[in-house]
């Protein structure tokens, strides 16, 4: 898994990269000003918010898998910890605004992630993946089994009364978009800096060859567990945002094993070891099925059996994933990087 990655860690930092100085402000201006002024409620609330949240989750897993080289299928369960943690904190601490609840909920998730990371001291690769799978199923069972987690409500579902922060209602699509965007940008910035510092470099060293890393004096087990904790922190916050900034309510069903696979696909398709890749992968995973659906509905609805059409869509989606992974195993982020390199020296050829 680790050998396939050829991207140096520094190249991946798109947001604060070595590019022209106007690039970052421009990107932020587009995200904060241009998009909200152009996009309608549907686009903001149903396409951009889930995209950002999935990107954050992908980013969290990317820290663990893409940078530190540890595979995990427990992402869904950790997102559930974040969501349920936020819910319980806001329930038991009256008057706590959502952003203030996210931080402790993220820390709780980090603690759970740290525990899930302990087996990585001894096992690697597929065996580690199986232990993370156990964590996933355990967490799913836990949140269903004990009604305390969903406050004894019917339907084992958690929901927050309203999204009001300091008296401002963030319940509208625009409000939720700004809330999620701010958190995602801040956390991406933190991740980018973390990766450029000694922590990120130690992770990369462990990913590329853990024996060598140990030889040069990196405390391998400590950094692996740190990677699990930091990754879980990101996933926890993503889970809380998925539940309360996108869906409005959630149950364990939203964070099942399918979600874990989805997040793994995001980083495989987007690009392992690339922050920008998480965003691209999330766009691919969340937008492509929607696009396919809209396209096939407008072209074939009424002429082809609906069940057949749905299955064909799944086939096309699967084929596209396969094509991408075969054509560019390092993900779309790598494609984009190659394209940038080509464009820089155009009309010469690389």
């Amino acid at each position, binding site marked *: 898994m680790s050998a396939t990655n050829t991207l140096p860690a520094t190249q991946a930092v798109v947001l604060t990269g070595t590019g022209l100085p106007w690039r970052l402000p421009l990107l932020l201006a587009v995200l904060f000003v241009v998009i909200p002024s152009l996009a309608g409620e*549907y686009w903001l609330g149903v396409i951009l918010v889930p995209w950002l949240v999935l990107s954050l989750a992908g980013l969290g897993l990317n820290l663990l898998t893409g940078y530190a080289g540890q595979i995990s299928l427990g992402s869904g369960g950790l997102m559930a910890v974040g969501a349920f943690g936020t819910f319980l904190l806001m329930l038991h601490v009256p008057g706590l605004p959502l952003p203030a609840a996210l931080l402790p909920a993220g820390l709780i998730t980090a603690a759970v992630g740290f525990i899930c990371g302990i087996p990585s001291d001894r096992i690697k690769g597929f065996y580690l993946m199986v232990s993370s799978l156990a964590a996933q199923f355990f967490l799913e069972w836990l949140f269903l089994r004990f009604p305390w987690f969903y406050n004894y409500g019917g339907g084992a*579902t958690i929901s927050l009364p309203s999204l009001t922060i300091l008296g401002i209602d963030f319940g509208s699509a625009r409000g939720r978009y700004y809330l999620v965007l701010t958190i995602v940008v801040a956390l991406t910035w933190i991740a980018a800096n973390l990766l450029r510092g000694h922590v990120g470099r130690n992770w990369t060293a462990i990913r590329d060859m853990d024996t060598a890393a140990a030889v040069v004096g990196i405390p391998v087990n400590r950094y692996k567990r740190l990677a699990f904790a930091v990754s879980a922190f990101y996933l926890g916050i993503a889970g809380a945002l998925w539940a309360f900034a996108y869906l409005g*309510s959630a*149950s364990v069903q939203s964070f099942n094993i399918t979600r874990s696979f989805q997040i793994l696909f995001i980083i495989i398709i987007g690009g392992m070891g690339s922050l920008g890749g998480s965003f691209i992968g999330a766009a691919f995973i969340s937008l492509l099925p*929607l696009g396919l659906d809209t396209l096939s*509905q407008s072209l074939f609805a009424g002429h082809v059996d609906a069940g057949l059409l749905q299955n064909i869509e799944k086939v096309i989606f699967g084929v596209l994933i396969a094509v991408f992974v075969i054509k560019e195993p390092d993900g779309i982020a790598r494609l984009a990087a190659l394209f940038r390199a080509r464009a820089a020296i155009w009309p010469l050829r690389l």
Partner: protein
Amino acid sequence: MRKLLLTTALTAVLAVPLLAPPPAHAAPNEQYVPLPTYRVGPYASSGTLWWAGELDYFRYINEAEGGVDGVKLKVEEFETEWSPDRTVEVYERVKNGKDGSPLAFFFTHGTPATYALIEKAAADHIPLIDPAGGRTESTDGTVFPYSFPLLFNYFSQASVGINFIAQKEGGFDKLKGKKIVTVYHDSAYGRETQAAIALLAQKYGFQNIQIPVADPGSEQSSQWRQVHELKPDWVFLRTWGVSTPVALKTAARFGFPADHIIGDVWAGSEADVIPAGAAAKGYQALAPYPGGATFAIHDRLRKAIIDKGESNLQDTKFFGAVYYNIGLINAALAVEALRVGHAKFGNRPLNGEEGRWAFEHLQIDNARLEKIGFKGLLQTIDVTETDHEGGGAARFQQWDGTKWNLITDWIQADHATLEPLIKAKSEAYAKAHGITPRNPAMQD
């Protein structure tokens, strides 16, 4: 370069349908009815028949009756794979209506999806319709104006199950000291009845034992060994999907008689008993949606839809299957509600607020049932602002090895006992969400 082309082509494929404005052929008098469906995924086998029933009935209304009071129904399907997350996405996509028609109601087709949408729909003023499912306490329409667990909520399902057992035993006084085991799918759906059964156990003095089956429930030896040791008088089977036939087969292996197992609404279709083979013979199930193609509406559909080859069913041998009839009944409830709305607001597409008014004044009496051909298939309905269920009865059907036979008339749930429980839950919800319950007397 090829890679670049591929990326560009893909981006284009993605962007074009998302950016393209909806086609501008606005039909003036069409009611938009979006349906979140699941034809893919683990529940597709039940879903496919369900949608066929709904689509066939809507088609019948459009073609044989020229629409609902002249307003045609424009139905559109969206795949969700029974995922609440995707149902939320569909809801957001359709909530503003289409081609000039607003949304009068939204079928959620799943309890988890109803839970996920309840606050959004209340804010958007769009009624959520989830017959024989939904959030039980939303029966209290004063707190949940836009949520309708129509027909038969989960507490009523528990109550009717117990009432049937009492009937079999020869009276409620005979329930005292009896052992009733509930084998349930360990999920939100499976647990939803627990509070109601606990209350009824207290009232009638029977022993209430709950045994969970973890999802998906394809191995249940330990549960049925437990049942075998307990030697209960009755087993209430509240499973879903594959766990139902497995339960029936395992029960037979442990020698528990099938005719002392009472199945729940969602454990009582052909798909639940046929795989169990002989083990299911004698099994009885709650039937707010009775099976069979012998009702008047089936004759009309046969003539207008099935025989013309226009049915959505791929194989017409499923015509009259339990899930198909679920579709028919749900569609009929929607159509009848639209009629109520048209009578007040005029024969035009209704919006969400008008849709709510319509559902809150939905009344279907015996004469009306006779007229629309649902006599025996659907119970009488009387929805009010304080009662968003409007029904609360079910018949019972028994599997004879080849088909379901109806064995009782409509049995009513014990609403008087359950109402305080529902009220307490809805009041807790109102408090947590800062909702001031509506005063029905002040409304129109």
